[in-house]
């Protein structure tokens, strides 16, 4: 399940900050699948995004957006991943869905 893949990628290092291409590479998901998941996780409060503090003129590129697991997200998503890997429970589906 794509959500599980994304959460598993975050779990690989719960303190790491991940960006879109990085997650795409690790999960094998296409951008069109990944970003809706990131938005849903953000809306659920499981991950929090923040913008890279970089001067575009100096760096010669636009800033990137990074995501990291919130403490609440780490706790709840661990449960969810276990549950999703075992048996998909309606409660988890509902909490992950919009």
């Amino acid at each position, binding site marked *: 399940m794509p959500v599980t893949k994304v959460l598993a990628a975050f779990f690989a290092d719960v303190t790491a900050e991940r*960006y879109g291409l990085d997650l795409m590479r690790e999960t094998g998901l296409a951008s069109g699948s990944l970003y*809706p998941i990131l*938005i849903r996780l953000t809306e659920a409060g499981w991950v929090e995004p923040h913008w890279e503090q970089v001067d575009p003129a100096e760096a010669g590129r636009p800033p990137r957006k990074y995501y990291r697991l919130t403490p609440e997200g780490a706790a709840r998503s661990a449960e969810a991943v276990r549950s999703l890997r075992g048996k998909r429970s309606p409660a988890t589906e509902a909490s992950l869905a919009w």
Partner: protein
Amino acid sequence: MVSRRLTGWLLRTAAARWPVQYREELAREWVGEIAALEGSAWRQLAFALSLAWQRPVRDKLPGERPAIVGLGLASVRQLGLAGLATVLPVSGCVLVLLAGGISQGILGGGSPGLGLAAGLLSVGSGLWMLGSLLGRRAPANAVPSILSVLWVLAATALGVLGPLSLVDSDSFFEVLGAGPRTMLLVGWLWLSVFGVVTLAGFWLARRSRWLGYVTAVAGMLASLHVAVIAYVWLHFGRDYVPAASLYRLVPETLLMTDAPLRPGTNSSFEITDATEFFPHLVLLAMILPLSYALAAARSRHRAEVPAPATAIGHTPEPEQP
């Protein structure tokens, strides 16, 4: 340069499919990732194409039908509709003419008008209902959209190839002698009138259903007359001008009563396979797109969905125990 522009367009298309408050943030984020893929145009394109292809996540109003608004699904849907808009009128036209032939046979060489009228009514009603059904499920931007372009192409093919493929051998060369330019002229004349009528009906139907319907149906009949009169005049030339008034050409040709096309100033003017086929084809080709456009205009109101309350980039406040 081309791939850069295409990538930009795909990203704008993808962003536009999200609720308003998401767009700027998403576009900014995607531009950042695209910049990281600098040097690999294909990967940039694949990244943008996947985003544009994906159905967006959006809230729905209670009772709202799910809208297919992703670029990929929408394109597949539009191609399918263009195919239907092309194939169904042709096969429906054959059915109508068969009904006329059967009616003529049953009536022992009498007028085929009854069978043609019944065939037109049943096939036309079926096409209208199908177009309405599909139109009610249409995305908000269904008309005008790529669909309009596809329909124009499909209708041009019908207008040009329909008569050419069905005339007898002599007339075929006569038509070719007149040149494809003539047929293109007829096809585009009809399409111009019909396109204006469809769009007018679409916009008016958003304000008043009946105003849109009356405009569209009246316009459909007007464009049919324009097409048939232009076709007859350009096909048969000045030497074969029918004696009857031009306004009678369409109804009497549709029902094959022969009256307006009987010997006029020149007795050699006759109804050919092409003149039988062409008005039926034009009429049936217009019904499905028109009913689709009118139904899509009405569905537009349902498609205006309020955006979610929370915005991306703002972590919701933690719940209080």
